[in-house]
């Protein structure tokens, strides 16, 4: 009798989970708000940044950048901004005096990133950005350094 009861409870919980999970997936799925983080990162081979305000990027991001084909050893965070974008929502983020990015949530995990340098559109990238993934736009800077605009989708 007891084992039957346990079995029934187990089945009930399984059933509840089976119903609740799809609902939560649908409710908080890819069509909802997209949590994003935009960072301007400076890559260099110098251990320290000449600007004391700049702090090293998170170990996780540093590891990803170091494991990529980039030649720089150290990465410093110049600016960071977190925001949420509803579907079809768009936001412009000023990364530096000369650079700004315009990000749009196209829905279905698709994101559009437009990069402006001195007010002129330099690039436009449209691609899927699943949770936890990065879209990095970068280029060479003075003294064999580099700049990166890192767009990361939060969990």
């Amino acid at each position, binding site marked *: 009798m007891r084992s*039957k*009861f346990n*079995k*029934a409870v187990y*089945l*009930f919980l*399984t*059933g509840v989970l*089976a*119903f609740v*999970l*799809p609902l939560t*997936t*649908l409710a908080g*799925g*890819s069509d909802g708000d997209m949590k994003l983080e935009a960072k*301007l990162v*400076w890559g260099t081979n110098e251990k320290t940044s000449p*600007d004391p305000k700049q702090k090293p990027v998170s170990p996780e991001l540093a590891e*990803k950048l170091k*494991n*990529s*084909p980039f030649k720089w050893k150290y990465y410093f965070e*110049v600016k960071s901004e977190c925001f949420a974008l509803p579907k079809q929502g768009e936001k412009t983020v000023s990364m*530096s*005096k*000369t*650079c700004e990015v315009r990000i749009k949530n196209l829905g*279905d*995990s*698709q994101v559009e990133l437009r*990069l402006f*340098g*001195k007010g*002129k*559109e*330099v*690039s*436009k*990238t*449209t*691609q*899927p950005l*699943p949770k*936890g*993934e*990065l*879209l*990095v*736009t*970068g*280029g*060479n*800077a*003075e003294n064999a*350094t*580099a*700049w990166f605009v890192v767009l990361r989708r939060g969990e």
Partner: protein
Amino acid sequence: MNEEQQLKLQAFLDGELPEDDARATASWVARDSDATALLNELRNTRKALADFEPALKLPESREFYWSKIEREIQRLEPVERPRETVSLAAMLRRFLVPAGALAALLIAGIVAFHNIGVAAAAPSEAALADAGAFTYRDQDQGMTVVWLSYPAEIGEK
């Protein structure tokens, strides 16, 4: 001997003839050997039938006998079985097993659809003003890099 005479002999044997007819028939049988033979034959036949016909006698009154049969018929009629009591666990199991299977299929469908949807979505598309730029995708790191060679001043702080 005609049929009427045969029937008269049968009635004589059964004692159904009026007294005058019975007396005349007895006289006729005594005189006619065919009639005597037929009468004997009829008598033997009746005796044989009477010997082999069981005489059923009810031990009780006719009404009581049939009321017993009626009661027996009523007793043998199918009685509606009492409903089985189903336990809560069994009821839950009956509902949850198919519901769980359905939900599992639903989850699998949603996950498959979600993955297919993401995978089938438009691939990375870049419109670059810089001819020297390139796009690099690192699947392991979950990272897409768009590398520009121009303009360097974007990174000016």
